[in-house]
């Protein structure tokens, strides 16, 4: 019970800090009116725009009004087209969830087993090959990988579409570009987590019981290694979010990453603020889920009371 109250409190606090910081940063970095209307706007136009969007009030009042609305779930309307911000985000969000989800699953399905095998066959050619690929995976910037893939598969071979999200074929390249980095990171961490567990006395004790190697790896080493791998799986979500912004732009994928880029370049404050909030909320929730699964998995925290 206490655990839940602390977590809920932390979650609320994090979101509050995020909302406040984005507000302060965005409002102090430039004047949204000039940015929106351009240098040629007349004083009267500027005046009208200010009062239309309540930008003529003192900054602190604007903040309170914004915070009040945010708590009610209202992030205002887009400065661009006047539609409610959540409508704008809601039509893009599923696309990003789809791309991010596919990449994440790809990273786990490839990265974790590769790391396990590399650890079990430590020092073999197989291990070295996996580590080389994983270094390439996370050293290669994903926009560069994306462009290379477009060149090869769309322009030269002409077998995959270079942009858009209208079919199954469209997701292959962006998901690969996004997932490869994460798979590389996961493989390395899984390998070192497994190696650490394999060196423990209880693994030797398991061997001394006459348990077969496959069973030792799956039932004795893996659950213990999983504890640290799960932590990393939470952390790489940050990379995933950063990655979507880049990859969606490269592949013209109609998700919130690309929306964020266009909203920033067109100075659409309301959309940027809401997007940052949505992304932060997603991150916090997913990390909470990671924490919970960690707690459930590890007998030491599960039964500490």
């Amino acid at each position, binding site marked *: 019970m206490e655990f839940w109250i602390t977590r809920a409190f932390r979650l609320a606090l994090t979101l509050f800090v995020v909302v406040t910081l984005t507000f302060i940063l965005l409002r102090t970095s430039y004047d949204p009116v000039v940015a929106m209307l351009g240098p040629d706007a007349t004083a009267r136009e500027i005046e009208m725009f200010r009062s239309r969007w309540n930008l003529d009030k003192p900054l602190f009042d604007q903040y309170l009004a914004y915070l009040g609305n945010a708590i009610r779930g209202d992030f205002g309307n887009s400065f661009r087209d006047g539609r409610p911000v959540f409508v704008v985000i809601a039509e893009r969000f599923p696309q990003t969830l789809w791309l991010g989800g596919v990449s994440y699953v790809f990273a786990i399905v490839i990265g974790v087993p590769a790391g396990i095998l590399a650890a079990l066959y430590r020092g073999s050619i197989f291990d070295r090959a996996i580590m080389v690929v994983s270094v390439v995976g996370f050293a290669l910037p994903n926009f560069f990988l994306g462009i290379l893939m477009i060149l090869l598969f769309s322009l030269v071979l002409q077998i995959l579409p270079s942009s858009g999200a209208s079919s199954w074929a469209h997701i292959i390249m962006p998901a690969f570009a996004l997932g490869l980095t994460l798979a590389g990171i996961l493989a390395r961490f899984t390998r070192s987590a497994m190696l650490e567990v394999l060196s423990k006395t209880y693994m030797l*004790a*398991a061997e*001394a*019981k*006459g*348990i077969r190697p496959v069973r030792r790896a799956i039932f*004795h080493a893996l659950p213990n290694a999983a504890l640290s791998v799960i932590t990393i799986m939470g952390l790489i979500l940050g990379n995933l979010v950063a990655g979507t912004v880049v990859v969606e732009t490269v592949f013209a994928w109609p998700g919130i990453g690309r929306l964020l880029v266009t909203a920033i370049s067109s100075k659409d404050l309301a959309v940027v603020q809401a997007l940052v909030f949505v992304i932060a909320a997603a991150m916090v929730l997913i990390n909470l889920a990671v924490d919970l699964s960690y707690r459930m998995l590890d*007998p*030491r925290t599960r039964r500490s009371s």
Partner: protein
Amino acid sequence: MIVSTQAPLLHWDRLSVPLPTGADRPHAVENLSLDLRQNEVLCLVGESGSGKSVSAMATMGLLKGEMSQTSGAIRFAGQDLTKLSPDARRQLTGSKLSMVFQEPIASLNPFYTAGAQVSETIRTHSDQPAAAIREKVLSLFEEVHLPNPEQIFRAYPHELSGGQCQRVMIASALALDPAVLIADEPTTALDVTTQAQILSLILALRDNHNTGILFITHDFGVVSEIADRVAVMRKGQLVEVGPREQILTNPQHDYTKALLAAVPKLAPRAARPVQGKPILEVNSVSKTYRTGSFLRKAGREVKAVVDANIHIHGGETLGVVGESGSGKTTLSQCIIRMVEPTSGQVQIAGKDFLSLKGKELRKARQRVQIIFQDPYTSLDPRQKVGDAIAEGPLIHGTDMREATKISHELIEAVGLETAAADRYPHEFSGGQRQRICIARALALQPDLLIADESVSALDVSVQAQILDLLADIQTQRGFAMLFVTHDLRVASQICDRICVMQRGQIVETGAPDQLFANAKEPYTRALLAAVPGANRVFG
């Protein structure tokens, strides 16, 4: 001892185990020929690096890489174990040949309950139904005297004590009634009273199951309690083997003689007359740990130290003995404020140590230095030995030339060559490193030296040298010493007075000769009785 006339149960026939290239010698074990008989405890003794654990691992087939390329034979039940296929060997491992390790808590997988782990041993080697396995495990827990077997069955390793974990490991090793049990330092990590219980359990197993037990230890006290025969190893070679009494009372080989001579005597000395001025005065110091949070104020309270009173004069050594969790380390850390005491007073060389803050505290800390247990982790691997020793004086304002001079003098004083100053810690053995740690602690000319289990990680021969060194330097320099240890033999030799701690409280204090001859507290008597080989003089 039961003398068996049967053929040996296990026969090592010129077994050699290679070391990886680049090691200090070509073989970890060289030409080992030895028998283990039914219904006997064969103690394999030797110092660290003598090859005793490697012999055990080779027997269980647990060696990896280059070391698995053994030569010679290990004969068991008419077959050479080293020639078996991996599958055939695995069928014997854990069922006919089983093993118990040194670190009981680390040997259990934290992810599974004790019951599940013992059940798995049975399931690996048989097709019994789950219910039968459960019954068998519960009866094994009963046999190894685990309290409340049902509860232990469902408990995770972190919920058990070290002694309980070792009983679970022994239950697992016994699960399939093995012919051979290998126990690698099974009681080294345990308290003396727990050790005594585990030793009597192992003797009962020998008698009830006819098991041949290879018992690896470095402790001759344990040997004198448990061995039927003793084999002594040194640098991979067997130097001597024979019945217990013969080895303990009439050893033939010089190395065995030297080993026995180095065993600390349980020869309690009298307190030396007090000469120096009072250095340490600890009045009613308590430390209570509270677990709780801002939502639940009333958490659990753990009283680590309760109302401790001690005092030490210059040139005097006060021993603090007790089992793990008795609060001896917490008390020593309260004195130098590595842990802040909850209440009480500490005076060091006339200064109220607990009221000092910031700069004054840092300055006063020169007066107290500490030597830790593990010489391998208490030196910075990237700092040259000379620099490590000179660092303290430098920080406290001595100039470079003077600090270097101090460092060189101390290196000689602890019995190393001055050239050692330019070398790194990894170039030294454990005993040499502990000498370096002592030199480092002395560099600030402390009034009080705290030695926290400072010889516990060392081999007996090295242990004896370090104890002599500490006593000599103390005579020369006249500092007060607080000597924290779990080892009553060591305490009886080096201390002027000993205080015995139990559950955070000092239950009894006295000079070793008085304390050992007529202890007032039942707990002190129980501790003394549990010392292995207490009534015996070695060497």
